[in-house]
């Protein structure tokens, strides 16, 4: 556990980091970013909590089993979205230009951007983002656990 300054700043910054990461995941098809980058940002928030509060508090804050479930959900959703387009091919973008969810046609050329475009890409982005944030978060938690068990002996 670190000093009170670090803990206070962590309390202020933690939600902002999470929201920024989810923003990067959500806008992956319009601005620089995507599932991996946003997931890494959220995982860095988890690492900040872990460093500021120590393993024992962070373990109660962020449950490792929830992260495992989240990662499995992300992986299954990625493969499931890929299988939904199997009418044409695996990984077919069946929602693009369809007029339904994320189905608005894009203006060709330079445009200000519309969130409701790109077909299945935002869904895949969310799936991969959940998978990456859960995977990296559980890796960080597990390594902190291993270091802590080494200190006790």
């Amino acid at each position, binding site marked *: 556990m670190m000093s009170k300054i670090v803990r206070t700043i962590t309390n202020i910054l933690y939600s902002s980091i999470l929201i920024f990461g989810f923003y990067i995941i959500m806008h992956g*098809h319009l*601005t620089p970013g*995507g599932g991996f980058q946003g997931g890494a940002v959220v995982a860095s928030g988890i690492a900040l909590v872990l460093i500021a509060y120590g393993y024992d508090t962070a373990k109660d804050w962020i449950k490792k089993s929830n992260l495992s479930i989240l990662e499995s959900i992300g992986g299954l959703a990625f493969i499931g979205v890929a299988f939904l387009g199997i009418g044409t091919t695996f990984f077919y973008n069946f929602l693009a230009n369809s007029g339904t969810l994320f189905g608005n046609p894009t203006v060709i*050329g330079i445009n200000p951007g519309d969130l409701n475009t*790109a077909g299945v*890409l935002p869904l895949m*982005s969310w799936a991969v983002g959940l998978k990456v944030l859960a995977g990296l978060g559980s*890796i960080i938690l597990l390594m902190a*656990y291993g270091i802590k068990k080494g200190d006790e002996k």
Partner: protein
Amino acid sequence: MKKYVALAALLVVSGFFLLSAIEMHSFGSPAEEDMDRYFIENAQEETSTNNVVTSIVFDYRGFDTLGEATVLFTAVVGVSLLFRRLRK
């Protein structure tokens, strides 16, 4: 002795690296760009995405991303298996 052999090997490899870096095609004019020009021109129409990199990662080369997700999953499983024996 072993250290000098390693140093000589490193010097030879570095020479090859630096020579090939200098003799490469000039910076700022890529050699083959037909595929990338196709992606830049058609990505907006085919995947209705503004970000061409995302359209390649998740659409044109989705299998790459699938393999990458598998590698990440395998790493998580490996790390949790390594630290499992510590949990009494």
